[in-house]
Structure formats: structure tokens, C-alpha cells
């Protein structure tokens, strides 16, 4: 076992440090690694910064210059004081540096005390002191919204919307794709063009009419208002249709000779064979639905039907943005998408490649 582990590590390392010339560094190697490094920083930088910042305290977030790691100022208990005091590194008049706790601040002067000698007060100009900090994780950013706010309800709503909408999307889109790929009828291509044509209409244009329809149906403030309007996607129909066109016609005809009804052909022959494309659409749909913001914001006005994204928005007041909660909950909302993607990403390449959609 140990042997295989080392060889694997070596090959992985060999892969990561592969060069063009044998052993020597060609200029393209330098260029490639710079380029790739830049790409990694561009892609991962914001996500990493987000994750790190989500553990910062509210004051840590507003600090300037910003720090990369979540750091918190050390507080110490000093004899004779009820509250814990903040610890500072102070540069004394003789140039020596001492760690003092601040009692209070008056104008530009801070009254400080040495934790070792609680009786002696020292007055220090505030520009002579810097906060003494340590690495500290503010877990309350995560626990507070989950306990005090309805974030678990939001999470539940988001999961319901995502799962139900994805199932409905897969069903409707695959049925449309089946009709448009397996049956040959006059106007098939025209209908396909029409479906693809709807891709050109941005959601903002149809926002108001769709809202009116949803209102008339009395769906406002129910999760169905989020699920139904986007269930049939032209992208999904197109993707599935292109894939289904590659299923040999003989199979469909064989099923027909085997006395299969149209539903059985769809459900038992075409659907299993279209699995790679279905998986791709499922991933897309999950990501769309989970990250959807604008439409839920419009149709969901009561906090008990909020999805996560809308709940996040609630932290942004007109005057005050609770960045520490926003960042922490953003991380929470990212996790499912990342997990889904990590497990299903191999389908994306095969599915997209074989459906002719690039």
C-alpha cells in the first residue's frame, strides 16, 4: 500500500511539475506556469478570501488595511476590572515595547494598565499603540443566523425549490426533447428553432408578464411560484434533444416491435440511454435554481417562504450591511453546489461533448 501511495504521489507531483524540455525549463514552461498560476488565483482567490473572511468578526471585517486571515484582538482579564480589557503593543517613550491593556480612551490619549501591575495607570498617545492580535475564528457568524434567524427554514425552502424544480425540469424537458428528436413530423425543425429562439429573450423582459400570470394563478408567496415558471428551459430541451438524436433509431424501432408503448419507449429505453445528458441538465438546473435570486426576490415576499439567496439579501439593510453574516451564509449556500459539482463533474464533460453543445 505504501508503495502505491508513494508512486501515486510521485506521478501527481511529476504531473504538476511537468516541463516541456526534458528537465530543463523552456520559456513556454515559465509562461505556462505563470498563466496557470494566474488562473488559479483568479478562480480560487475570491472563494478563498470569502471563506477566510466569513470567519472574521464584524470589526475585523471593517478594518483597514484588511487582513487575509481572520484575526481577533486579544482580551485579558485584569484584576480590579469587571470587563476583560483589550491588549495593545505599546511603544514607550524610551523606545521599548510593552504589552498593556487599555482601560479607556480619552481623545487621543489612552489610559492603559500593565496586566502584571494592575494598580499603575499609564497614559499613552493612541498613535503609539497597536492592537495585539491572534488567529481567531468567529464561529458565531455561522451559528447566529442559523439559530436566531430563520436560516434553516430558508435552507429547507431552497432545497425544496431546487429538488422539485430540477425533477420537473428534467421531466418536462426530456419529454419535449423526446418528441422533437424521436418523432418525425412536419414543422419539427421550426418548433426547435422557436424553442431555441426563446433563448434570446432575457428574463428581465418577460418579468412583468410572468409576474402577472403568477399573480392571477394565486401563486405569489408559494414555492410553486418559483418552481413552475422556469421549469421548461430551451437550453435543457436543446441539450437533451441533441443527445437523443444520437440514440440509434433501430433501438426505438426494436422497442416498437417489442410492443412497447410510447411512454415505455421514453421511460425505459430513451431515458436510461440519455442519462449522461440528463445528468448534465440536472447539474445545471441545480446550480440555476440554487443560485436563483431575481425571480424569487419578486414573487416571495414573506420571510417564511424565503430561499437562501433572498434570506442573504435580508442582511443587507438600507443603512447597515451585516457583512459577517452575509459572508458566512454565502459560504453555506455555496457548499451544496460545490458538492454536487464535485461528484457529477465527470458527466459534464462527457455529456456536453457528446450532445454537441460546447
Amino acid at each position, binding site marked *: 500500500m505504501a508503495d502505491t501511495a508513494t508512486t501515486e504521489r510521485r506521478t501527481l507531483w511529476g504531473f504538476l511539475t511537468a516541463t516541456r524540455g526534458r528537465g530543463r525549463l523552456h520559456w513556454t514552461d515559465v509562461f505556462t506556469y505563470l498563466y496557470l498560476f494566474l488562473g488559479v488565483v483568479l478562480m480560487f482567490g475570491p472563494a478563498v478570501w470569502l471563506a477566510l473572511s466569513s470567519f472574521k468578526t464584524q470589526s475585523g471585517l471593517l478594518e483597514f488595511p484588511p487582513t487575509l486571515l481572520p484575526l481577533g484582538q486579544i482580551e485579558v482579564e485584569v484584576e480590579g476590572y469587571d470587563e476583560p480589557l483589550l491588549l495593545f503593543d505599546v511603544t514607550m517613550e524610551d523606545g521599548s515595547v510593552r504589552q498593556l491593556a487599555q482601560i479607556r480612551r480619552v481623545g487621543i490619549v489612552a489610559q492603559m494598565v500593565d496586566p502584571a501591575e494592575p494598580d499603575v495607570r499609564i497614559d499613552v498617545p493612541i498613535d503609539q499603540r497597536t492592537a495585539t492580535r491572534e488567529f481567531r475564528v468567529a464561529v458565531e457568524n455561522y451559528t447566529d443566523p442559523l439559530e436566531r434567524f430563520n436560516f434553516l427554514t430558508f435552507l429547507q425552502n431552497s432545497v425544496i425549490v431546487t429538488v422539485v424544480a430540477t425533477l420537473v425540469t428534467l421531466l418536462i424537458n426530456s419529454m419535449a426533447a423526446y418528441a422533437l428528436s424521436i418523432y418525425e413530423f412536419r414543422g419539427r425543425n421550426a418548433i426547435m428553432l422557436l424553442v431555441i429562439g426563446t433563448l434570446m429573450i432575457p428574463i428581465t423582459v418577460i418579468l412583468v408578464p410572468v409576474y402577472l400570470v403568477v399573480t392571477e394563478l394565486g401563486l405569489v408567496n408559494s414555492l410553486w411560484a418559483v418552481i413552475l415558471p422556469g421549469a421548461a428551459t430551451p437550453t435543457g430541451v436543446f441539450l437533451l434533444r441533441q443527445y437523443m438524436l444520437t440514440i*440509434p433509431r*433501430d*433501438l426505438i*424501432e*426494436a*422497442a*416498437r*416491435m*417489442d*410492443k*412497447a*408503448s410510447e411512454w*415505455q419507449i421514453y421511460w*425505459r*429505453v430513451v431515458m*436510461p*440511454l440519455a442519462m449522461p445528458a440528463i445528468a448534465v441538465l440536472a447539474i445545471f438546473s441545480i446550480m440555476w435554481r440554487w443560485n436563483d435570486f431575481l425571480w424569487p426576490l419578486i414573487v416571495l415576499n414573506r420571510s417564511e417562504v424565503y430561499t437562501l439567496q433572498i434570506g442573504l439579501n435580508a442582511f443587507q439593510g438600507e443603512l447597515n450591511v451585516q457583512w459577517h453574516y452575509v459572508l458566512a451564509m454565502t459560504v453555506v449556500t455555496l457548499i451544496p453546489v460545490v458538492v454536487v459539482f464535485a461528484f457529477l463533474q465527470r458527466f459534464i464533460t462527457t455529456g456536453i461533448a457528446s450532445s454537441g453543445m460546447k
Partner: protein
Amino acid sequence: MTEILLKDVRKSYGTVEVIHGVNLDIHSGEFVVFVGPSGCGKSTLLRIIAGLEDVTEGDILIDGDVVNRITASERGLAMVFQSYALYPHMTVYKNMAFGLENAKLPKPEIEQRVTAAADMLQITPYLQRRPKALSGGQRQRVAIGRAIVRDPKAFLFDEPLSNLDAELRVTMRKELAALHKSIGGTMIYVTHDQIEAMTLADKIVVLQGGVVEQTGRPLDLYNTPQNMFVAGFIGSPRMNLIEATVEQDTLVAGPHRIGIPPVDGLVPGQEVTFGVRSEHLQITEADAADITVQVDFSEQLGGETYLYCSAEGMPQLTVHQIGQLPVEQGQALHLKLNRANLHLFDADGLTIANGIAA
């Protein structure tokens, strides 16, 4: 037992007519082979019988009922496709059971039927495998098995052996013949290979350009072709066809003069084609010969010998001889034509005489 009747069947794609009025009577339990070159409409005709294509005009009767408007799944026929069309996501067992499940048969009966068919075709060890894990011959058996378990009114085969290698094709051919003997159903078999047609058929239907050229028992077609196309198509190697002009009791082809007894309907000066099969050309002495040829090359197969010869004013002639024959390239041979096996065709390709009495 099933009778299938085609009455003046026509098929058009748009304005292009591909089947020009086919009349055919397929008796119960008969093994009928549709044979013809690529694009002759034989597969289309089979698909029309199967119900996978609509007829443009004419009627198809199965056991006396017109089935034009009845779908493929309701006609009760089973089809074996050239590509086998096995469902790749199902095991062999599931593949064979699919049609029975669609027919809503009880589970024990499905199992009993599949097991019986698998035994007959010797595929029992592979029942739990996917088609991907089978060889070409095994897939072929599964495809046939899928047809057998249904206990259909008739079996339709669409070039089922053309994806197999030569050796396997011969084996499967024999098995198909044995299968027909043992289950005795009506079978319609499409092929472009006239050897398959000759060996399997009770009745051969020769098609060309969407028209039935001749229908009959294999040896009847071989011995008494109704026209030049059938004469050339049936039999391997091809019949030698030589253009000639008629003089008084003589066929003149280039410098060669072949004396014939008087034949009804032959007029001096008429342009005709005469045909003689390779085994009906005899090597004789110079004074008894009709024509003298030069050997271009020879194929020594051990048990038999094919000589390809050229003569002035004639196309290449194929001569078939039993046994081994010591001939050298360029050697002169004297050939005699068996008058009793000489076929005469008029300028339109229609037969004037099959065999001229001595």
C-alpha cells in the same frame, strides 16, 4: 401460422417512388428471402410489412386482415435488426424479457419463455451480461432470442448476418435454417447476399429498383431466370453474359461463331445476349470447341478451380472446373458451351430461352 399478402404495394418519399407496386403471397411457415442489390427497396419492403413505414398505396394483409393502419407493435411480428438493436442498458435477460413485459405476461411465464429460448440458442451463460460484453455472434443470438420469446406471427430479419465475419456467418446460416425447421414460423429475410438467399429460402424474391424481378424457389431461379438481371444476380460466380448477333442458326460474338439449333422467336440480325454459367463451360479438344480463349489467371481452391479467361470480342469468361487443374497463365483453352444450359435474352433483357434443345 401466418400468411402475409402484399397487394400492389407502393411507397413514395415525397415525389420519389421507391417501391413500384409489389404483389407478393407469402405462405404460412414459408422462409422467404428478399434479395437484391443495395437500394433495391428490399429493406423498405420489410419495414413496410413490419409497420415501421407507412405504405403510400396498396394493402398489406396478415392472415386476411388489412393491417395498413395498424401500428408495428400491434401487428404481432418480431424483427431482428442488422445492428441487432439490443438495449445497451439492459442485461441479456432483460433484453429478451422486455417485449414480454410490455405484453403484460405474468413473471413466471416470462422467465420460463426466456429460459427456454436461451437454452435453444445456447446463451444461458450470458443471461446476466450486458450486450457490450458479448461477441458479435452472441449478440446475434440474443437478437434472435428476443424475437423467438415473443412467439410472433412471423419473423422479419433485416440483413442479420452482415455484421458477422465469414466463418460465423456460415455457422449462423446453418443455425437459422435449423431454427426455421424446429419452430416452423413464417420468416421473411432480407439480404444482399445471394448465397444466403439460395441456402435459406423456400422462396426467393429478387428485387431491383423497387420492382419484383422474379419470385420462385431457389433452383428455379437458378435454372430458369426470367430475365438477364436475375440470371446475373443469382449464382456465384456470376453467369457469363455475352452480347451477340443472330445469324442463321448461329450466334456471332466478335470473331466467334456458335452454332445453335433453331429457337422460336429468334430472327436473323437480332441483337441478343447469351448467358452460360461457369460450370457449363467445358474444356474440350480443339475440333469440338466453340471458342478458344486464353487463361488470364486461375484460382486453385483444391477441390475446385476457377479460371478467368479472355477471348477477342467477349467480356472476361469464368470457367469452373471440379478438382485441380494444371493450367498456366496465357495458356490457350478450347471451350464448349452446353447448349442445354445456354440462356438467351433479348435486347430488353427478357429471357427468350433457358436451355436450347440439342
